[in-house]
C-alpha cells in the first residue's frame, strides 16, 4: 500500500499545488486569501494530527471515510500545501520581463503562464519537489496510525507474531531506503531529461 498511497497522493497534491500557487501568483482576489489560509493551516499543524482529525474526528459529525481514502485525502492536502509554496517561489523566480514580452507579442495572460512561465517554474521546482516526494514515501508510514496496512503496519503485525523487532524494523528501514534510492536516481535522470534550455 505504500507505493499506491504515495503515488496517488502525490499526483493529487501536484494538481492542488499548481492551482494554489497560480492563484497566489496571479493575485486573484478572494481565492488568493483562501490559498494563503489553506497553506497557513496545513503547514502549521502536524501531519499526524491531520490524519487523526480526518479519520477519528470527522465520524463525530457523521463523516466516515475508509482508512485508505482518508490517508490519500490527508497526504494530498498536506503535500499540496508544501508544494504550493515551492511552486509559488519557482514562479516568482522566472524573470518577469518575459511576461511583458509575451503581452507585447499579443499573448493572453493564460497563454503566457501556460507556455512560458509555468514550464520554467516547474523546471526550477523539480529538485525540491523530488525532495518532497522522497519525504512523502517515508511519511506514509504514519498512515499505520489510522489502520492503513501499508508497509510499516505490515511490519508491526509480523513483529507481533515473531517477536523479532530489531531485525524486522531494520529490514523495513532498508526497504524505505531502497525506495528512496530509486527515486533519487530517477530524479537525476529526470533533471537531465528536462534539460536546461541550453545552460
Amino acid at each position: 500500500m505504500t507505493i499506491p498511497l504515495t503515488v496517488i497522493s502525490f499526483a493529487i497534491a501536484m494538481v492542488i499545488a499548481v492551482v494554489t500557487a497560480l492563484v497566489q501568483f496571479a493575485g486573484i482576489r478572494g481565492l488568493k486569501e483562501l490559498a494563503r489560509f489553506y497553506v497557513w493551516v496545513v503547514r502549521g499543524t502536524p501531519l499526524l494530527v491531520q490524519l487523526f482529525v480526518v479519520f477519528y474526528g470527522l465520524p463525530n459529525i457523521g463523516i466516515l471515510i475508509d482508512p485508505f481514502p482518508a490517508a490519500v485525502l490527508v497526504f494530498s492536502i498536506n503535500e499540496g500545501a508544501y508544494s504550493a509554496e515551492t511552486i509559488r517561489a519557482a514562479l516568482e523566480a522566472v524573470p518577469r520581463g518575459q511576461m511583458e514580452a509575451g503581452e507585447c507579442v499579443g499573448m493572453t495572460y493564460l497563454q503566457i503562464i501556460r507556455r512560458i512561465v509555468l514550464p520554467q517554474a516547474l523546471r526550477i521546482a523539480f529538485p525540491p519537489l523530488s525532495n518532497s516526494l522522497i519525504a512523502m514515501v517515508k511519511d506514509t508510514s504514519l498512515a499505520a496510525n489510522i489502520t492503513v496496512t501499508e508497509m510499516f503496519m505490515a511490519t508491526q503485525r509480523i513483529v507481533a507474531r515473531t517477536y523479532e523487532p530489531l531485525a524486522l524494523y531494520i529490514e523495513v528501514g532498508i526497504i524505505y531506503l531502497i525506495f528512496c534510492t530509486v527515486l533519487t536516481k530517477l530524479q537525476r535522470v529526470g533533471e537531465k531529461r528536462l534539460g536546461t534550455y541550453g545552460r
Partner: protein
Amino acid sequence: MADDLLRVNGLSKSFGNGMVIQDFGLSVDKGDVIAILGPSGAGKTTMLRCVSFLERADSGTMIFDGKEYSLSSPSRHDVLEFRKKTGFVFQNYNLFLNRTALGNVTEGLIVARKMSRKDAEEKGMELLSRVGLQDKGNSYPSELSGGQQQRVAIARAMASDPLMIFFDEPTSALDPELTGEVLSVMRKLAEDGMTMLVVTHEMGFARNVSDRVVFMEEGKVVEEAPSEKFFSSPEKERTREFLSTIMNQN
C-alpha cells in the same frame, strides 16, 4: 496630416510621490524614426511604457492608425488590437528563456496569430537572417551574447509585420563592443521605412539615423527638432547644456 500614424495627447503619469510625466504630447508620421533623449529620470521609459500599455497612464489619449485609445483605461480588446500592430524591444531583451531563438520569433505568430508552425518557422528564419542570425535558430538565449539576444528580440518584434516598433534603451544593457551590431540592425530597419520610437542614449544613432529628436526632462518635452538641427543649433539653453555634457563625456 495624412501620414499621422501615432498621436499622443495629454499623457500624464505619477508614481506615488511625484509627477513623472506631465501633459506629454507627440505625433509620429509613418516612416518616422524618432529618438527620445534626456537625462535619466526624465520619464522617457515611462512615457514609452504608457504609450504601449505596459503601464497605465493617469490620463491621456492616443490615436494610432486612425483609431482612438484611452491611455488610462483601455479596453482589453483595444490593447490586443494595438499589440497586433506594434512591436516592443526591451532594454533587457526579455527573451523567452525556454524557447530557442527561432521559437522566440515564432511564439507570438503561432499562439496569438494562429499561424501554422511551418509558415511561422519559415517566416522566423527569414527574420533571423535579416538580423544576421540565420545560423542561431536553434540556440537558446543563454547560449547567445547580449547583442545576439537583442537582435533576436528585434526579429521577434518584427514578426507581426508591425506598423511601428518601440525601443526602450535597446543598447543600454550591452557591452560597448556589442552595441554596434544592434544599432546596425536598427539602422537597416529605419532604412527599410519602419516607423520607430526609440528611447536611447546613443547620440550617434539619434544624430545619424533618427529623423527627429524629442528632448525630455522632468516628464515634459523641452525641445523637439529635426535631428540635424537639434545637434547643430539647439534652441533651448537646457538642450545646449545637456548636449555639451554628453559631448564632453565622449
